């Protein structure tokens, strides 16, 4: 296989869901440290794109290449190792409601065997990392609570803590702001920006809010004062932030490019998202 420095590469991936195309000949790639914002209406195949990435569903045709390795036909057991390098935030958080918040966040540390090659982590080490991860989303006080005792926004934040506790190089966010009020939604996006800039991770964020993508593209976390600030164009450390926008419609990728290109695109479907975001 030729050398491939992409984090994800989709080559002509199609997936049928019933009689409709959930993904229809989708091709795109992502480089390390890059952020992709996938916009699309409900049912446009955004979630399937994420699930296909980590092999939770298998494409009917095409190839999925993850960290330079063709994982299209890998078995579930092979996938477990590579999934340890990917964090996922599910739409409603996807927390296990029979486990406490601490156990939820500790779950990937205890179960992803690729991580414990150098021997199993001790209980104290796990607890320390769980605390650190929860501190990051400012929910350290909820360790012993159950997911049902938390609000929707808090569950989403715990989901982020669980997705990033293993410090994966790639994080997938499935509609992180869906169903949240604007203030909570902004908190979540700020956390995602902070996570991206502190740990320098690549991220795919699926959303139907243009504003989420706009924030991702134009703000960055300032570690000196702990605030999320607007990007100043031309400043050296800010040029590292590269955000691309993808727009999906009925399983097809109808747009790919920067925010400026997105705003200037004449396609009425694409424009619908921009207008909805700016109004």
């Amino acid at each position, binding site marked *: 296989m030729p050398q491939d420095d992409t984090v994800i590469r989709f080559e002509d991936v199609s997936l049928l869901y019933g009689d409709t195309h959930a993904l229809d000949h989708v091709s795109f790639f992502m480089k390390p440290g890059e952020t992709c914002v996938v916009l699309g209406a409900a049912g446009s195949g955004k979630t399937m794109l994420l*699930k296909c990435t*980590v092999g*939770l569903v298998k494409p009917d045709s095409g190839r999925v290449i993850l960290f330079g390795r063709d994982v299209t036909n890998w078995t*579930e*057991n092979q996938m*477990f190792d590579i*999934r*340890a390098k*990917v964090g*996922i935030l*599910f*739409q*409603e958080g*996807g*927390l*296990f*409601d029979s486990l406490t918040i601490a156990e939820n966040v500790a*779950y*990937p540390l205890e*179960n*992803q*065997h*690729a991580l414990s090659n150098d021997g199993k982590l001790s209980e104290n080490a796990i607890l320390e990392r769980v605390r650190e991860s929860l501190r990051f989303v400012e929910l350290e006080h909820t360790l012993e609570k159950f997911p049902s005792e938390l609000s929707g926004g808090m569950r989403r934040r715990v989901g982020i803590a*669980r997705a990033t506790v293993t410090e994966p190089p790639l994080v997938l966010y499935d509609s992180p702001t869906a169903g949240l009020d604007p203030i909570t939604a902004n908190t979540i996006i700020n956390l995602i920006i902070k996570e991206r800039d502190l740990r320098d991770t690549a991220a795919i964020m699926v959303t139907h809010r243009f504003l989420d993508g706009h924030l991702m593209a134009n703000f960055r976390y300032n570690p000196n004062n702990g605030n999320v600030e607007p990007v100043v164009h031309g400043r050296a450390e800010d040029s590292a932030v590269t955000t691309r926008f993808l727009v999906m419609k009925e399983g097809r990728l109808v747009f790919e490019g920067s925010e400026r290109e997105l705003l200037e695109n004449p396609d009425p479907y694409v424009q619908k998202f921009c207008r909805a975001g700016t109004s």
Partner: protein
Amino acid sequence: MLDFLKQPIETFQEFMFLSGRAIRNIFRSPHYADDILLQMDVIGVGSLFIVTLIGFFSGVVMGLQMSRALATYGAQGKIGEIVSITLVRELGPVLTALLVAGRNASGIASEIGSMRVTEQIDAMRALGTDPTQKLVTPRLIATAIVLPLLTVIADFIGLLGGGFIASAMMNISFDQYWNSAWRALEYNDLVQGLLKPFLFAIVIALVGCYYGIKTSGGTQGVGRATTKAVVVSSVWIFVITSLLDPLFVNLQ
């Protein structure tokens, strides 16, 4: 032309795949001992009261019904024999299994189904655990251990119930009843009395898990999965027992 057969055959095939994986996982690490113990508690200890109750009443009813029939032949002394054979061979295993199917096939299907629709199953896979290993296999092991035990308890309490009727209403001493009940049992009866619940347990656990994992369509889907799990596992209990019976009857 045979299109109507496609779906049931597909379902059966998927079910067999799941069963194969679940059984293979018994011999593979990682093992989730905590989950097995938890499920044994939920299924076994949780069903204990209702199983005892139903066991007692089935013995009582058997005793009452048989007392009249036996009286016509003046063979009341045979009551112990009849109650013990019907209970140990058939009623104990089937009634207990039906109860556990109603209680636990539904419980398993709805629990796993809710996990499915809230993406917890996907999360489990994404975080490095095989849902068959973590959810299905422990339930299978737990049910297969616990259901034969529950059946033994139901049989025993049922025999006591029959004895209660014999001594209270038929003027047969409890000792005499117990003696004839005990002597009526052969090795063959015990084998089928324990083999049946073991097979029923496998069906109950796997059917519950299968419909749970196949759930789609939100909360409504969970309801449908639960109903199907109970109906299908109950039907299979009867199918299995009618298939096994001729085998054991001919063994005599």
